[in-house]
């Protein structure tokens, strides 16, 4: 069973429907015990880091989530879910993250003259810089849908799986290690290629070796 963690984040419906579309049976749950019992876990997210972390802790997800990652279950984190995996976020005046991956979350900072818009919203290409089983059927530089104002500054290049360029600046758009795979973009909103990535997740055994 695939469990989607419900901690009040905004995109639960679309993530659930996208998985159902590709034939998965999905449980959306706010019960930590059900997360523990699941074979694979999805950590979605839309909203701000402050309220996200707050709700996540309040509902008792921190421990079960860490356990799921430690047990080697395939875990997919999306958007704010990915950002919450890191040590600290600059959003909402500074928020401590889960610290599962090394690095921080910073605000995009472009000069006013550059006229580069924030949030970074729309379709942008993703360049994989590591071979990964989650890439199956996805071409190098395929476009995915993004909406975010903060980005991950990875603490080590090893946790960056994919990169995206915005306003002349390259940021980590896919991160992860071992059984953990996280995207800054929204696969559930990225058309056929997004559904392909979700399908890859359903068949992924959590190993990165090719």
């Amino acid at each position, binding site marked *: 069973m695939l469990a989607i963690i419900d901690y009040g984040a905004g995109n639960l419906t679309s993530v659930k429907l996208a998985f159902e579309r590709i034939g998965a049976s999905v449980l959306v749950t706010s019960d930590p015990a059900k997360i523990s019992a699941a074979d694979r876990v999805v950590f979605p997210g839309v909203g701000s880091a402050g309220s996200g972390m707050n709700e996540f802790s309040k509902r008792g997800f921190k421990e079960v989530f860490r356990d799921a990652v430690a047990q080697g279950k395939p875990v997919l984190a999306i958007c704010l879910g990915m950002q919450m995996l890191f040590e600290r976020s600059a959003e909402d005046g500074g928020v401590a993250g889960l610290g599962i991956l090394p690095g921080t979350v910073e605000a995009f900072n472009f000069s006013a003259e550059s006229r580069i818009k924030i949030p970074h919203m*729309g379709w942008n290409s993703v360049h994989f810089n590591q071979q990964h089983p989650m890439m199956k059927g996805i071409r190098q530089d395929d476009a995915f849908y993004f909406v975010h104002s903060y980005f991950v500054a990875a603490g080590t290049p090893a946790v960056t799986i994919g990169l995206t360029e915005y306003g002349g600046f390259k940021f980590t758009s896919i991160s992860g290690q071992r059984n953990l795979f996280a995207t800054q973009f929204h696969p559930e909103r990225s058309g056929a290629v997004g559904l392909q990535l979700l399908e890859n997740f359903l068949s992924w055994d959590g190993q990165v070796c090719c």
Partner: protein
Amino acid sequence: MLLKRLIVCLDVRSKRVTKGIKFKGNVDVGDPVEMAERYCNDGADEIVFYDITASAEKRPIDIEMVAAAARRVFVPFTVGGGLRNVVDMRHALLAGADKVSLNSLAVEQPDILHAGALAFGRQCIVLGMDARRVGKSLHFPSGYEVVTHGGRCPTGLDAVEWGRRAEALGAGEICLNAIDTDGMRTGYELEITRKIADAVGIPVIASGGAGTVEHIADAFSTATADAALIASMVHSGEYTCSGIKKELAEKYHLPVRLTSN
């Protein structure tokens, strides 16, 4: 590089998609959800559903249709029409919509933009703006006036000023629909589109008047729009989204998302 978006607009009336000229003489062109799915598979980057009779019939937006669309559309989609308050907006977003478009309501109660942005984040809030060319004057420095109710009601607001104010209030995107060219297929109103794109720091969607791929290319390059909204071009069957994007890429060298199927 961030890509230019091609958005397909579906005007829904009594659960069917219709297309008119300047908001009049609507003809039935199909089932909204089926059409949306087809357009997505053909490479549309986003879909907009306008429940165009909701306001007139004094009913909320057709949530059933929003929920049905959410099961079959896996690109971002926006819904508009019949949204009266934050509660209606929440229902639409919970049913699976990614963004809500506010038009007349934002003119009547500008604070709704602020309330919406506060509740859902500004990326969910699209200001739909219908503008009509009135000529430059003291009251209308841009030469365009904001109108509502399909162009029937002038508002006295200058289009550029309203765009700036809407951004300050919380709009995350502006869909600028030129009333004079809507459905005419003679090209977008590039002048006002460019003026608004220059005046605000949020994405601007050109709408109203696309008839050829060159029109869309002009909206991106001349008017610097971030996205272009089309309806008749694809509803008529004359063009496909994939064909349009291929031409935008190959002939006009514009950055667009090309899909393999």
